[in-house]
């Protein structure tokens, strides 16, 4: 089915042809992100719920998950930053080193959902998705911190690593049997993974033996980086809240001295992934102030959030600014809520109601969603 007509239709001033009132169209039937173009800007496309379970077992913002549960459908809005990112991803040259794209913007503008749009596109095209839903969760509130078995200087985080491995398995089930490990890994006196065995075994080992989960994650990252150049698969590394890798942690050792991020094995291995010394894929990152530690609440620029170390590590990268809704997107969002009968207040569909919503939310997607929740 083709796309529906764009919002404003240029009608030639002709006495016979009746002038069509521009209707707000908030939905499109195009479910394939590869076909999304500028004509779909501002429109919502729905992700099938089956795909949602496999592609996004983790990674969607919690309020969006609540919305999906309430409406019974997952609809993402097609916006300019996401379209720009998709355009770059479509034209990636897999022979060149992986390009880093950084989505930045103020709080609540839609960086995470733009990242999810890109991930959906790559999943549809059979890329291998390495999605870390929130790097900030790895640098704070860790209940169990073990000394790493591989390197005495570093620390293991068994819980976080095992949950991530479980979700990674759900997303990339079919790749785990195809990719073969290129080295022998010895876990302990009794268990080891032979060279040439599928990657799925390493993941299983990490999930079942929680103590080795962090090392399993490290092995997965190393193998994928090594083998992405082979051309078997395209690798997408998607990290939300990447500024956690170069910030500070709130974790402390037993003697109450603070731990630097590089002393955590997960962070150390992830930082190696961020280097562009591999090819055969792309790296899409999001900066986030919301979960960050020791950063001003109004900070959103890459230099502020990444700090000198992070900026130098990621330099050069392609920055993509995600901003608040423009008028067309705002109208589309309101129209989508009205279609789903989410705006129940009788004054909400009126012009004054819309003006008031625009004023109160300043066209910020997160604020608008919170306002409409109780109206």
């Amino acid at each position, binding site marked *: 089915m083709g796309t529906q007509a764009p919002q404003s239709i240029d009608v030639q001033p002709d006495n016979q042809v009746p002038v069509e009132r521009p209707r707000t169209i908030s939905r499109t039937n195009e479910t394939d992100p590869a076909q999304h173009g500028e004509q779909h800007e501002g429109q919502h496309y729905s992700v099938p719920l089956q795909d949602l379970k496999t592609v996004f077992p983790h990674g969607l913002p919690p309020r969006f998950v*609540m919305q999906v549960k*309430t*409406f*019974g459908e997952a609809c993402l809005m097609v916006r300019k930053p996401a379209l720009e990112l998709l355009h770059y991803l479509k034209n990636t040259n897999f022979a060149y080193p992986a390009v880093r794209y950084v989505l930045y913007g103020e709080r609540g503008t839609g960086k995470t959902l733009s990242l999810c749009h890109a991930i959906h596109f790559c999943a549809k095209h059979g890329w291998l998705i390495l999605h870390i839903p929130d790097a900030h969760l790895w640098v704070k509130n860790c209940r169990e911190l073990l000394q790493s078995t591989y390197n005495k200087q570093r620390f293991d985080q068994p819980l976080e690593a095992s949950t991530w491995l479980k979700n990674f398995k759900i997303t990339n089930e079919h790749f785990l049997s195809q990719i073969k490990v290129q080295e022998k890994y010895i876990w302990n006196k009794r268990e080891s993974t032979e060279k040439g065995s599928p990657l799925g075994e390493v993941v299983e080992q990490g999930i079942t033996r929680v103590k080795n989960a962090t090392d399993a994650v490290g092995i997965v990252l190393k193998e994928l980086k090594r083998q992405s150049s082979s051309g078997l698969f395209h690798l997408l590394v998607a990290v939300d809240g990447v500024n956690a890798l170069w910030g500070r942690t709130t974790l402390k050792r037993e003697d109450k001295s603070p731990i630097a991020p590089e002393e955590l094995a997960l962070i150390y291995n992830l930082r190696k992934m961020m280097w562009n010394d591999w090819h055969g894929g792309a790296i899409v990152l999001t900066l986030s102030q919301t979960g960050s530690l020791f950063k001003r609440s109004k900070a959103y620029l890459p230099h502020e959030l990444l700090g000198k170390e992070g900026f130098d590590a990621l330099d050069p990268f392609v920055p993509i600014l995600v901003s608040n809704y423009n008028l067309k997107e705002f109208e589309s969002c309101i129209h989508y809520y009205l279609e789903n*009968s989410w705006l*129940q*207040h*009788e*004054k*909400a569909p*009126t012009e*004054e*109601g819309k003006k*008031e919503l625009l004023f109160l939310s300043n066209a910020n997607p997160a604020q608008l969603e919170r306002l409409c*929740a*109780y*109206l």
Partner: protein
Amino acid sequence: MAASALKVVRSWSGLAPGVTFAVWSIPRQTQVRWSRYSPEFRDPLTDKEHYRKPVAGLTEEEKYEKELKKTQLIKAAPTTTTCSVFADPVISKFTNMMMKGGNKILARSLITQTLEAVKRKQFEKHRTASAEEQAIIERNPYIIFHQALKNCEPVIGLVPILRGGHFYQVPVPLADQRRRFLAMKWMITECREHKHRRILMPEKLSHELLQAFHNQGPVIKRKQEMHKMAEANRALAHYRWW
């Protein structure tokens, strides 16, 4: 004379604390509550449409009023006045009653979370219901809120009246304001006291509101008990003199 009668009544407060005085309605000439503003201050007019009218479109009377206001003293508008189209006086009153220690931000956030919880619960019900039921299920949280509070309002109340050294609970018709106040007070007390400490207020309040909307639940029970007590004490009704 009225002032001296009221002064005598006020001295009785030492006898029985917490007793609502039925005797306030002796001749209502005395001002009990006073205001810092002296009498010449006029109330403010907070109507956007009134001030948006173009100068040319004003009638003679309105022009005179406008000139007169320039010379008169006007009270400050309270901070709670809004020109928002979504403002609801019932919700504002309920928020103020929920507020503790002046923390209006917390009270307002609790109310908005409650309305959201009510809406989501109703949407869930609507999704899983058949076509006929879908037409009946109400999804507007404001309508549910208003209807629930209306269902909780008692029709008749009890008032302690002193006769012959004893306080008798006399059934008495309640004013509209008092009924609305009692409904809100009962709802808030019920949600604060009879819940497990781990359950959050919006969850409990949304549950109670939905129950009251369907004329069930502990707050409706309390209203019905009040009615039963009033019915039981019918014989004392002649103690009322107003």
